[in-house]
């Protein structure tokens, strides 16, 4: 909302500089975005001049040499406007004047003739867009009169970002009332207090009629009729005021409707009544698919909920949004019908969104105006119609009330509630002052107030708490509010849940292991699963799709973190990075939850899944399966190359070591099993389980996937946070006695077929070793000719321990035989 300061001051002059007023407005809840100066930066050196003579320039066809009286004498001004003529009273900029934009005017020679100033067109003063003709002023003005006495120059305009609840401040008068409330400066009488005399003949209802077929969508429709209308340009003051407020002047009738709207917040619409057959208007909803051409020359297709104002030939305007061309006011118009109606805000909002058409009118109607505002706007506009268009108001106002409006709201404002909610006291007499200045009626009843809400605030102030806000903000929240912390009923003992602490630990753990944390986009390209070679019937191919994405490649919610990590890696590699270790801890979104707690071990986990597994607090479950993941990707070496070696490119085992270390940091039992994934190297892919629960994958990224992202090679993992943290024992451990008898150590070399997994060998040994075998860890792998085709040798270090004695050679020897026998069942032999 642009509010020219001179206009505002007509109703309430706070008597302070505009900057000071702006500051006060900001601190009471009206956001002043900026103060714009319209017109030249200063009024100095702008005067009224009289053109004494205007002669053809001797050397230029399009220039005229004028003699202009400036109040002190005469001066020569060369002018390019074709319509400049002797006898005109004009606006003159003298040398030294600063033009809008700041340029300083100097005496200049134009084709050999010195010009001591400039005769101005409307746009040069920013009081309109007209550049063709010069600005001709009232001839009663004396030469030499400062121009600022005629039109506002250097006009400060407050640009206020009005919040949607304050519909009253979408009008200059509403802003003036607000200024009155916060400054206590006097407020002038309402500009609609006195109606104009109806000097026309007959009755409005003789020449016009209004039928409302949809009363609930059109609670009120008022119309006035004017005869003898002369359409022409508006006077300078009106054009200047509209221009400053951001409205383009068009003609006096249209300008009057805009002026009345900007003043009262209530939009109006003028019809050329001669173009309305029979003067009969009907308000109805459109037929589905009905078409009409709006004032902006666009043909619009309507739906059945759009409300129209129609004559017998069809629509003349989309109600509350934009008029049509059929009955538009033109230079020939002499009979005008002024429509001031009230529309259903929700319906206007819906239709304007559907049509993609937002106007000054619709942006006000959509916030729900009060029907009582209609006549205010009629009165303001009627006066100007008579004054500026020579029009005669036909007696009688057509007033169709579709839905009678509610009685003014009466609210009780409890004194105890004011201080109880704010934590500061506001004297009752002050509360009354603030509310009355805002237009409310307030009567004291003991500590409390009985308050009546004015129509402009009817839909905004509906409860006691709304009144508390009003008195608080006028009183001055920043200035008066004490600073306290919650006392008796305050919070006790904040903290993180165990799950939250473990999650931080996991993120810190990956960071400690050398991985950089990234934050990827939740949006992705719906073709991403295909780029990852994921088949279309995989749940990871059915993404949550957005109905109104910013672009096609941001129209799906990711089902895997891997895609974002590959994106980030590709961008960094393109910038020259040769070593990347990235991780992300964030959510993926699946239309349907995967089978949760899929059990791959023997032990079932009954831990609650919690928010990381998509189980959030609240009565309604999350609409889609939202799972928190921890994912990592390595490109190039994990550690840097150095003068002492290192710098080997990350492979399956180097990243597996990272994941194992992560699990160890959390005290989670982790296991791996060969399992292909479409986006992984088929021979270097593993399913990861944590605490016996399937949790995700680990592997080298398939070369075709790498190629799709312009990467040479990459290794990564992606696991669900819920099973990771569910399996974590960190923080919950109990002491195990360490003062046992000395352990016995023995190494075994086992030859098995290549197809037998190391895990299987280890599990077989541990099974056969029984209680005394404490651990068995692989420390060497050997494949060679002497073993024969298809065989490998694994070396394992065994630790035997007994809680109650030192183990003898016989103890260990016996177990060794049992292990040897067990290994034979999986095709293994011991190398001696």
């Amino acid at each position: 909302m642009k509010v020219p300061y001179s206009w505002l001051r007509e109703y309430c002059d706070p008597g302070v500089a505009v900057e000071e007023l702006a500051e006060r407005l900001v601190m009471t809840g009206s956001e002043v975005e900026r103060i714009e100066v319209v017109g030249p930066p200063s009024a100095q050196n702008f005067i009224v001049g009289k053109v004494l003579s205007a002669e053809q320039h001797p050397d230029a066809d399009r220039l005229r040499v004028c003699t202009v009286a400036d109040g002190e004498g005469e001066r020569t001004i060369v002018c390019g406007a074709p319509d400049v003529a002797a006898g005109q009273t004009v606006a003159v900029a003298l040398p030294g004047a600063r033009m809008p934009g700041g340029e300083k005017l100097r005496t200049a020679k134009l084709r050999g003739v010195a010009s001591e100033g400039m005769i101005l067109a409307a746009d040069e003063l920013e009081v309109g867009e007209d550049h063709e003709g010069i600005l001709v002023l009232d001839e009663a003005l004396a030469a030499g009169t400062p121009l600022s006495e005629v039109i506002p120059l250097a006009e400060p305009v407050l640009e206020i970002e009005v919040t949607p609840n304050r519909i009253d401040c979408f009008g200059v008068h509403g802003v003036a009332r607000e200024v009155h409330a916060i400054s206590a400066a006097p407020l002038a009488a309402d500009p609609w207090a006195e109606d104009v005399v109806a000097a026309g003949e007959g009755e409005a209802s003789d020449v016009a009629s209004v039928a409302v077929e949809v009363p609930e969508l059109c609670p009120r429709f008022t119309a006035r009729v004017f005869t003898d209308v002369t359409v022409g340009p508006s006077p300078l003051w009106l054009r200047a005021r509209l221009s400053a407020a951001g409205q383009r002047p068009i003609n006096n009738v249209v300008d009057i409707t805009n002026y009345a709207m900007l003043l009262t917040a209530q939009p109006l619409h003028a019809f050329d009544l001669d173009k309305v057959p029979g003067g009969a208007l009907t308000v109805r909803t459109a037929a589905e698919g009905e078409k009409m051409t709006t004032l902006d020359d666009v043909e619009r297709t309507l739906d059945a909920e759009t409300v129209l104002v129609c004559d017998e030939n069809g629509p003349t305007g989309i109600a509350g949004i934009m008029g049509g061309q059929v009955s538009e006011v033109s230079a020939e118009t002499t009979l005008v019908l002024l429509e001031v109606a009230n529309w259903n805000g929700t319906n206007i909002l819906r239709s304007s969104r559907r049509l993609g058409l937002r106007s000054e009118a619709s942006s006000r109607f959509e916030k729900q105006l009060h029907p009582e505002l209609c006549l205010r706007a009629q009165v303001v506009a009627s006066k100007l119609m008579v004054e500026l268009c020579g029009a005669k108001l036909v007696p009688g106002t057509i007033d169709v009330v579709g839905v009678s409006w509610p009685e003014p709201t009466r609210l009780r404002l409890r004194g105890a509630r004011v201080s109880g909610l704010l934590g500061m006291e506001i004297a009752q007499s002050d509360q009354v002052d603030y509310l009355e200045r805002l237009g409310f009626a307030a009567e004291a009843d003991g500590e409390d107030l009985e308050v009546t809400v004015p129509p402009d605030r009817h839909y905004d102030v509906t409860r006691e708490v709304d009144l508390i806000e009003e008195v608080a903000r006028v009183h001055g929240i920043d200035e008066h509010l004490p600073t306290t912390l919650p006392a008796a009923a305050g919070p006790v003992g904040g903290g993180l849940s165990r799950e939250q602490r473990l999650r931080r630990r996991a993120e810190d753990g990956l960071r400690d292991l050398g991985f950089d944390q990234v934050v990827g986009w939740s949006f992705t390209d719906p073709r991403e699963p295909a780029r990852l070679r994921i088949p279309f019937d995989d749940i990871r191919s059915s993404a949550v799709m957005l109905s109104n994405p910013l672009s096609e490649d941001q129209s799906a919610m990711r089902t895997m973190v891997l895609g974002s990590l590959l994106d980030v890696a590709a961008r960094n590699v393109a910038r020259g990075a040769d070593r990347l270790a990235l991780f992300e801890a964030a959510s993926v979104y699946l239309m349907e939850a995967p089978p949760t707690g899929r059990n791959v071990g023997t032990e079932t986990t009954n831990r609650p899944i919690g928010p990381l597994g998509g189980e959030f607090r609240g009565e309604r479950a999350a609409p889609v399966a939202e799972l928190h993941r921890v994912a990592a990707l390595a490109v190039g070496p994990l550690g840097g190359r150095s003068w002492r070696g290192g710098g080997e490119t990350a492979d399956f085992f180097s990243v597996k070591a990272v994941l194992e270390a992560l699990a160890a940091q959390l005290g989670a039992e982790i296991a791996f099993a060969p399992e292909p994934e479409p986006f992984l190297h088929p021979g270097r892919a593993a399913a990861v389980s944590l605490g016996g629960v399937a949790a995700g994958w680990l592997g080298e990224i398939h070369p075709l996937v790498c190629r799709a992202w312009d990467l040479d090679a990459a290794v990564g993992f992606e696991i669900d946070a819920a099973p990771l943290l569910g399996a974590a024992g960190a923080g919950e451990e109990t002491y195990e006695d360490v003062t046992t008898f000395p352990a016995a150590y023995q190494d075994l070399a086992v030859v098995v077929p290549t197809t037998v997994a190391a895990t299987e060998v280890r599990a077989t040994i541990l099974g056969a070793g029984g209680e005394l075998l404490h651990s068995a860890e692989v420390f060497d792998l050997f494949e060679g000719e002497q073993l024969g085709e298809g065989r490998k040798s694994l070396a394992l270090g065994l630790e035997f321990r007994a809680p109650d004695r030192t183990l003898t050679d016989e103890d260990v020897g016996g177990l060794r035989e049992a292990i040897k026998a067990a290994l034979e069942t999986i095709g293994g032999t011991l190398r001696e």
Partner: protein
Amino acid sequence: MLERIEEIRAEAVAAIDAAGSSAELEGLRVRYLGRKAELTGVLRGIADLPPEERGEVGGVANKARKELEALLERATEAQDAAELDSQLLADRVDVTLPGAPPRPVGHQHLIARTTRQIEDIMIGLGYHVAEGPEVEHDYYNFTALNHPEGHPARMLQDTFYVQSHPDVLLRTHTSPMQIRAMETQPPPIFIVVPGKVYRRDSDATHSPMFHQMEGLAIAEGLTLADLKGTLLAMCQGIFGGERELRLRPHFFPFTEPSIEVDVSCFQCGGSGTLAGGERCNLCKGQGWIEILGAGMVDPNVLGFVEDYGYDAERVQGFAFGLGIERVAMLRHGVPDLRRFFDNDVRMLEQFS
């Protein structure tokens, strides 16, 4: 005799002092303390002295011997250490070479860091951390937060909707968790809610995805003044103990009264002018930086959870929401919101 002992002693002390190797020291030990040494002879011959001399000579000789023994031992130790050092020195390395192989160092994303920092401040004030879904029901994102259907307030935020589920959207703020939390926990409640939020807007100052931190406090007798104190504590925790707050009334559908909060600029100290006299670029000369929106929870919102123990006549409280990126940008001088999601490692590695 006594004079002779003193001569031997002085001679031996000088010799030990001058010795340059452990072999030399061993020679001196044999020479002055060995079986054939003169001092040893003196001690051995004490019995042959006249009785009146025996005591004095014996004492002096013994004292000299002990002194020489101690001296020799100390000199030998020192000599051994010096010899070891010279061997070690031959084994020297270039300490200016980099540690090898280098241990990779990971970095925390600024958003994660800032989120944690604010969480920790609020935990210190007695709050718990709660998390809600990003894909959310219209009911939690709008309706229950006093944005009725068809209300212009819904237009304030451009919302992403989910295809073929018109009532499902990407949450436009972390506020839906207010309702979820109150549905599952009776008052008093003191929580913060960090997380991703989405708005259909993309330019230098708007990202379609960003992060917020919501705060919610409901109990008996909480006031707007308590909100101010809480926010002051939080902002001082983030931006430093000297900070002050400025509260401007505002409008949010789910709080009443609502305020926008500015924090005094930590670069210019709120003066708007830098030491050199030029205008402060951070606050654009205003001295204040807009940092968050807040207010007293609207009774209509409590009306949606009345059945869970939230009677607006009995309990009241406040809510606030701040942008994590905005805090991170201000704290670390990041010029453009979009940098956070570009994940350029050259930027990531600036923040240890």
